[in-house]
């Protein structure tokens, strides 16, 4: 059995614990991640997705249950999460809001400098990270951070985390608010990151189509609990269940469902546009149901 890089079991977490405003965010959620995997986490707003992923790099500690990341038990008070933050990079939603240095290169260099890297190493990591996100080092390193476009600023923010050279990259709604081109761009960057460097990716997303395209496994959270977990095709087969949970299925899957409802016999699982086109093409060559 592969050693899991992240292992969450029966995790409970409360907000404002001990105050009159206390509320439960996670009620026994679970999650696993193996090295180099691409996993999706889905759930309606308030399902606990963000709370869950904030445990992965030690920002939050488990109140009950266990969280092990790279072998470190985060329930242990003595565990220092700071070393984990180098190996598990967390990119928040709308990450461009965290940019603070007026120069692009310096903002991205923040992480490596905090790690104690020397000048040459910092430069190497910044160049690498900028190349990875598609912002050429020479052209962008001295640009005014706040003068860039939304999509570019987002890339700078992601590069800032990549410069830590994490083995796991967790992204909360990475394409939220981006226009179609910038969205496609960023997804390509992330996929390349996985393919070329073996970085494990965890996507927290509402976008069913994106999830279907990229991930191999999906976990669905609802009311602080993990309610569905498995290969992406299996999870999206539960269309009714997902709709009940306030989520949807990819448009292609919905189309397949609509066709089957109308008596058409479609072979296999349909997740992407390609799946749909193939299935519809082959169904028309066989006798109508």
């Amino acid at each position: 059995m592969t050693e899991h890089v992240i292992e969450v079991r029966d995790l409970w977490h409360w907000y404002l614990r001990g105050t009159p405003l206390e509320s439960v965010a996670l009620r026994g959620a679970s999650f696993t991640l193996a090295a180099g995997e691409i996993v999706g986490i889905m759930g309606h707003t308030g399902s606990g997705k963000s709370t869950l992923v904030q445990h992965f790099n030690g920002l939050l500690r488990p109140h009950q249950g266990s969280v092990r990341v790279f072998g470190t038990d985060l329930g242990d008070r003595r565990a220092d999460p700071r070393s984990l933050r180098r190996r598990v990079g967390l990119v928040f939603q709308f990450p461009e809001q965290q940019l603070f240095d007026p120069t692009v290169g310096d903002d991205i260099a923040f992480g490596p400098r905090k790690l104690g890297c020397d000048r040459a190493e910092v430069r190497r990591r910044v160049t690498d990270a900028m190349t990875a996100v598609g912002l050429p080092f020479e052209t962008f390193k001295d640009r005014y951070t706040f003068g860039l476009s939304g999509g570019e600023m987002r890339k700078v923010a992601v590069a800032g985390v990549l410069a830590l050279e994490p083995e796991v990259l967790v992204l909360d709604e990475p394409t939220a608010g981006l226009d179609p081109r910038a969205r496609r761009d960023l997804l390509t960057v992330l996929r390349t990151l996985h393919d070329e460097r073996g970085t494990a990716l965890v996507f927290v997303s509402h976008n069913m189509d994106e999830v279907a395209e990229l991930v191999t496994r999906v976990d669905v959270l609802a009311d602080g609990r993990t309610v569905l977990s498995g290969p992406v095709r299996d999870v999206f087969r539960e269309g009714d269940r997902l709709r009940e949970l306030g989520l949807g299925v990819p448009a292609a899957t919905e189309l397949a469902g609509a066709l089957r409802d109308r008596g058409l016999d479609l072979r296999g699982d349909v997740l992407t546009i390609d799946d749909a086109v193939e299935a519809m093409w082959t169904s028309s060559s066989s006798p109508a149901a």
Partner: protein
Amino acid sequence: MIGAADPLIRIDSVSVAYQVPGGRVRALSDVSLDVHRGEWLTVIGHNGSGKSTLAKLFNGLVIPGRGTVTVDGLSTADDEQRKHIRQIVGMVFQDPDNQLVATVVEEDVAFGPENLGLPRAEIARRVDDAMRRLEIEDLRLRAPHQLSGGQKMRVAIAGVLAMQPAVLVLDESTAMLDPSGRAEVLRAAQALHRDGVTIVAITHFMTEVTFADRVIVLADGEVALAGDPRALFARPERLRELELDVPQVTEIAARLRARGMDVGLVPLTVAELADAFVRMPR
């Protein structure tokens, strides 16, 4: 006042340019378009196409350097008329938080009518009505930070509705929301449209185009395409050139057509494509 058949808003040969360090940036070049009473017009375009500048022309937040913008016959360049124009054309923005000013929902919805100097009884009536139509009555005494994105946006729309505008401009109002929030806002806009409110929606989500009567595509500060949604979707390659998405179903139909399998129409929804496909002769 103009006749009922005349366009409610007329944008005539408008150009807008900004001064930035290093020169002038042309946001809009010689753009003309009309908004007709009661229609749903969607303006779509990639980031940088000029659509945010265009949105601000409708209620005089931006005055064009060249050309004119008239609302119900009144020019937005006229300082005296601006308050009146902003009562006719209401606008809701992208960030759900940065348009709510009051500490409780009820107060925020009343903000607009209060600015118009209306008597208290009338304000109360309008607030109740707006909150009912946006289905936020149970949120009356909540504070903004306790609301979801979709709820905040509906409060913002209610606040504009309480001023009884003829036109509601939605400036990328769904961009920062999750899918359920987006659905809430679109449902609300559809209900208002059914009641006769003219809707101008500025967005980059191609899926929202299906609600529109008419669509205008902006690219690089100019009008690149105009027409009804189906006419637009019939040309996916052109849309991709303009850096826009095509809805999944339209893409699927286009690819099938490329293989020689024509479903016979340009589908906008899953149901349309499914129906058309099963009806196809084999």
